[in-house]
């Protein structure tokens, strides 16, 4: 018999990702953050940015003002949005066992838009980032609640459908249909609004990271942090789900509770970001695939922290591009994420031949 091997001789591998890759990613995020603060319509030297960040201040008060009250909140929003959307996408892909799931694909962001539209139009305001800024701290909570509830509503509908239909493709189609219905409802609402409001709404749908003020940022970071915390706590549950629901149950997992947890944290994160920044597509679907192919694993203990870093980096990168450094104008962030995100998804598909293998 092969009894020769002693138990002590068996070496167990480590579960954590490679330290070098992790450090490199953190460095990339940091470099992109500095770049994001330095580049734009006004170029600010890197060492000045560094001084402002470390609290030494800059001699040029204009620079200090630009960094502190405009670019830093925007960069922070970009990081939060990157993390929130990536984690939402990752959780949805695992929950639905579907490589194409993501907050924008399955209509979660559309649900958030609906929530925002109901609050804005229902209370006589216009859905613009300008109008959003007029809300005080109570208003921000109202927006977050509305957009989260809107997301959760759509999520619940999708979950309900997924219990009856186990076909991934069918579920995807249903999700897109529900998203379309939601968007149509908002459009009808817009149709009966004035032309200025239509224009404002269109601008909102382009997405904007710069409309987020200090006060919004506070509310948003609390909501997103809660979502991130919940996601980290559910990493081991999500791993069990990778084996299929029946296996997960047999190992003592309360699948219903985990589903509720995922719905809550995903709606909270995607809802908060969409409410303040408008619908931002593609980050949610692209980042999890990108992280999977970089770290070659579906283990959520690795994927969750790494998706945070990749998401933050990608979103900062998109923000830098959208500022069109050196020019006075800005591109809508939603177009930039799609421009960057779609090739990423295609690259992942081509690299792995099919998404299922990478999933």
């Amino acid at each position, binding site marked *: 018999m092969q009894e020769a091997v002693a138990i*002590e001789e068996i070496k167990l591998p480590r579960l954590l990702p490679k330290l070098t890759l992790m450090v490199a990613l953190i460095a990339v995020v940091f470099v992109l953050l500095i770049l994001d603060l330095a580049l734009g319509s006004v170029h600010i030297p890197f060492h000045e940015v560094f001084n402002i960040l470390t609290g030494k201040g800059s001699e040029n008060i204009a620079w200090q003002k630009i960094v502190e009250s405009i670019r830093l909140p925007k960069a922070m929003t970009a990081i939060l949005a990157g993390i929130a959307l990536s984690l939402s996408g990752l959780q949805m892909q695992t929950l639905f066992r579907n490589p194409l799931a993501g907050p924008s694909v399955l209509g979660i962001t559309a649900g958030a838009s609906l929530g925002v539209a109901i609050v804005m139009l229902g209370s006589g305001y216009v859905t613009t980032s300008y109008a959003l800024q007029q809300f005080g701290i109570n208003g921000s909570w109202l927006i977050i609640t509305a957009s989260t509830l809107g997301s959760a509503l759509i999520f619940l509908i999708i979950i309900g459908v997924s219990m009856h239909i186990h076909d991934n493709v069918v579920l995807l189609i249903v999700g897109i249909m529900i998203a379309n219905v939601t968007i149509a409802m908002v459009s009808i609402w817009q149709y009966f609004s004035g032309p200025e409001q239509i224009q404002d709404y269109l601008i909102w749908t382009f997405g904007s990271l710069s409309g987020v003020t200090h006060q919004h940022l506070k509310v948003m970071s609390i909501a997103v942090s809660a979502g991130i915390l919940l996601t980290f706590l559910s990493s*081991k549950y999500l*791993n069990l789900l990778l084996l*299929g629901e029946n*296996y997960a149950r047999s*190992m003592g997992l309360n699948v219903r509770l985990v589903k509720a947890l995922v719905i809550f944290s995903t709606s909270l994160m995607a809802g908060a970001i969409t409410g303040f920044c408008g619908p931002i597509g593609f980050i949610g679907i692209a980042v999890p695939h990108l992280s999977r192919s970089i770290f070659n694993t579906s283990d959520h203990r690795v994927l969750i922290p790494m998706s945070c870093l990749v998401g933050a980096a990608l979103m900062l990168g998109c923000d830098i591009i959208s500022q069109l450094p050196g020019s006075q104008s800005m591109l809508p962030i939603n177009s930039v994420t799609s421009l960057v995100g779609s090739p990423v998804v295609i690259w992942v598909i081509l690299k792995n031949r099919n998404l299922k293998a990478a999933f």
Partner: protein
Amino acid sequence: MMNSDNRKEKDFKNHGKQSLAEPLISTQDLSIGYRRKKQHKVIGRHIDLALHPGELVCLLGPNGSGKSTLMRTLAGIQPSLDGQVFLKNHPVTAYSKKKLAKEMSLVLTERKHTGNLSVYSILTLGRYPYLNWFGQLQEKDKSIIKWAIRETGIAPFINSHIDKLSDGEKQKVMVARALIQETPVIILDEPTAHLDLPNRIGIMRLLKKMAKDTGKAILLSTHELDLALQAADVIWLMMPDQSLVTGVPEDLVINGTFATAFQKEGLKFDGQSGTFKFHEWDGKKTVTLEGGQTTRTWTARALEREGYAVAPGGDLHIMIHENKTHTRWQIEYGGERHEFALLEHVIKFLRQKDHGKLTTSNKTNYTKTLAWEKI
């Protein structure tokens, strides 16, 4: 060091040893099936069974006889229609999910891709019922994982990704995961399906060894009749009348339960060989065999394929002469004695005889064979 090894291993092997007589799982007058809106679709009724520690139990039955339903009911996944399943004398439905996960582990047939997880990641999932909120593996968790890796022999690929493994290796990983869950009962749904013969035997051997060494009760469903007959301590047989017969495999063969269980399919179970008769005898041709030992069995098989039944006093008489170097088949027919060196030629002769085209060709056969032997 040897001492500490033993102590550690004993920890994993103590399941059930203390009460060999007490069944881990038992049922009384259990009915299984599906609840429809208006009526119940009963698949099995009056099921009394007991699963004892240290036993390897094979659940057999034709397709659609309700093997999976019974296993799902025993595992508490599917509610019973009537009667109760008892796990350690408590109704299985009364267990919380977390508690049940410490008593019973499952290996399912789900063969959809399990994600890009490394084998080790999957193994660590088996410890889930024992982990704290943060999911940190303790030394005890690690040592049981190491033990399971050694027992199942999967050490060479614990770093590989599950998608890259062969079906046999995958199944071993899933068995290891169930062992790591450290439960007195392991239930496996067709663990040998999709595997080639060496892997099928490998898995069965592993399970048999685990049942014997660890005192775990292992229940598996399978279609591998001969493998089950050899490996199982107890066989549970789903009968055509929706009942379940349990017993030691040999008892079930001797008392003809096997034969009745698969009768529905129009199959004849051969009590002698423990297999199903592939060829149906049309009741016409009989043959008597004489001599030989192993050769006799194989000759009988060849003749059965040709539509003969081997019986004493048959229409045809075949003598088998064997010595160290060669085997000869002698047939007395039509006052002549024909001799053959290969079964191939016996069969050819028999076919020609049936078609009434018996000429001297058998002679050619004989000479041809001699020529072949010279080479």
